[in-house]
């Protein structure tokens, strides 16, 4: 039974990808990003932290595809190596808030009442802060370290997952098939775990993909202002920050290439999220 379901799911995915070029490209790009994150450091042409001052601030050339920075380090190598850290921060943060947010949100949506109100208040307080400012304050409070960037990003993502899961569960909890499950002998716990969650998860996965892009931007923003990751660690946000000093004198490559890397990573996850929405929608299956 489940084997045929998996098979039909796979066939459906291929079918959607065939009909949707953009999603297929985004999926390929996401896989490529993951590969770069895993194997990139082994493949780069130069040591990303080795300085070579005589070759400082060279524009892109055949030797240095993305030019060199103020210490003569190869920008391209640094970009590739940075992928792992940037993705790791975003993926960890989003996964943490996804798991915690989904559990709390579905519980609130299904149970309602006092628990729902209390959590709602807490979420309201979190949402009353501009989220980037909140993340900034938390990193400052918890200590200027990479783990804390992850924690801060996870916390500012949390309200969205809680609200989203709550809303998705809430609109379904009084539907006929949920009541039918209870009439068929399922208790509340089983209804939530075996019926509501599987129906809510696809939408949450879409949300997760869209959120990944946002988390990448946030983490890069934090390190841009000097929080979290410290130089000389290669990281996209820091690379932009370091290149910023040279933009007024026309050294465009120092900002553009890490900026482009950020943009492509975010774009890829956003497009993938939009595509996932179509794939996971069972109504689209024929």
């Amino acid at each position, binding site marked *: 039974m489940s084997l045929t379901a998996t098979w039909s799911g796979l066939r459906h995915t291929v079918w959607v990808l065939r009909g949707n070029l953009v999603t297929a490209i985004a999926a390929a790009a996401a896989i490529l990003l993951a590969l770069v994150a895993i194997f990139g450091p082994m493949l780069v042409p130069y040591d990303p932290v080795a300085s070579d001052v005589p070759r400082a601030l060279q524009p892109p050339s055949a030797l240095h595809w993305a030019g060199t920075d103020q210490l003569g380090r190869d920008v391209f190598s640094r970009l590739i190596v940075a992928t792992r850290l940037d993705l790791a921060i975003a993926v960890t943060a989003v996964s943490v808030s996804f798991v915690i947010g989904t559990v709390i949100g579905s519980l609130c949506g299904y149970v309602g009442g006092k628990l729902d109100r209390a959590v709602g*208040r*807490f979420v*309201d*307080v979190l949402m*009353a*802060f*501009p*989220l*980037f*400012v*909140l993340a*900034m*304050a*938390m990193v*400052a*409070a*918890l*200590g200027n370290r990479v783990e804390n960037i992850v924690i801060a990003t996870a916390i500012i993502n949390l309200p969205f997952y809680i609200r989203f899961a709550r809303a998705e569960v809430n609109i379904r909890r009084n539907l006929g098939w949920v009541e039918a499950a209870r009439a068929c002998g399922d208790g509340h716990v089983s209804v939530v775990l075996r019926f509501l969650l599987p129906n809510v998860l696809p939408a949450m996965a879409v949300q997760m993909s869209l959120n990944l*892009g946002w988390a990448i*931007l946030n983490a*890069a*923003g934090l390190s*841009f*202002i*000097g*929080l979290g990751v410290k130089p000389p660690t290669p990281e996209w*946000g820091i690379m*932009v*920050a370091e*290149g*910023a000093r040279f*933009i*007024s*004198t*026309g050294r*465009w490559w120092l*900002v*553009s290439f*890490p*900026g482009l890397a*950020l*943009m*492509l990573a*975010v*774009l890829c996850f*956003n*497009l993938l999220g939009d595509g996932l929405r179509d794939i996971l929608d069972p109504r689209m299956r024929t």
Partner: protein
Amino acid sequence: MGTIGATLIRTGRRFLSSLPALFGVLVFTFLLMRVLPGDPAVFFASGPSAGNEEIEVVRRQLGLDRSLPEQLGIYLYDVGRGNLGRSMMTGQPVAKDLRQRLPASLELTLTALVIALIAAVPLGVLAALRPNSLIDHGVRLFCSLGVCVPTFVSGLLLIYVFYYLLGLAPDPTGRIDVFASVPPARTGFLMVDFLLAGDVEGWWAAARQLMLPAFTMALFVIAPLARITRASMLVSLGSDFVRTARSIGLSRWQIVVTYALRNAILPVITIAGIVFSTMLGANVLVEKVFSWPGVASYALDALLVSDYAPVQGFVLLMASIFVAVNLLVDVLYGIADPRATVV
């Protein structure tokens, strides 16, 4: 039946219901800053001659020797009196620093919001009126790309193009040229103060200085605004009541504007509130890129030297502004949508 009365009642009620959130914000900010692992007393006392005794003095000065609830009480009392502590960095009261710098941040954020709305709403409407047309695809592409470029990158690229390459923009540091004369500060908003002083040239200079950072920030939020406008306009145009409007032969303008757009604008108002919050956050980045002398860059400088009173004050200020903006959005929504008044 007085709709104004109903709006007032609603505003009051919403204000009351936002008080707990505001209180939560206060407690949260307090806790956040007290969890600071580094001992600020050690930090500020640290000089060549810093001994244990000196640290104790600073600790007592800062009230750090008391219990947590006591400290919270003192903190709340101080905030109630408008006392946000003193910045070690500038040596001034934080409240005064913030008051001086807030207009710069608000001027930037509000200008950006206006630019974004002026650009996004017509774009969204046009795209919705001709779905799948060239303009629709163009808007969609722009939106997809717009949310992907971080403000600090787009800001720097704008500087590269308009300052370095084209030479159209002035030196991208600060609100005004270092040598220019500053108008008497009446509102703190340079654009207004120059006008009040009748200094057109100064106004133009300030406006030019404002353009790049404002566009940087606007670029980032045009995408979500245009996207929601397009989506809600499509829903509106496909709704039963627009079909009714067509069935009685109303003019196209009336159908699109009075019936479809007025309904479609409701979700845009809500999203605009969220967008404003994003912009308050993006302020930190944009002010850093353009050396804009606003509250965010002030807090950031303080944060990097672990001067925590300004950071605390800034976070509190941002949250209060945001609560106030939400209240405003809510009131606007109540005026725009009669259904909201009954709730």
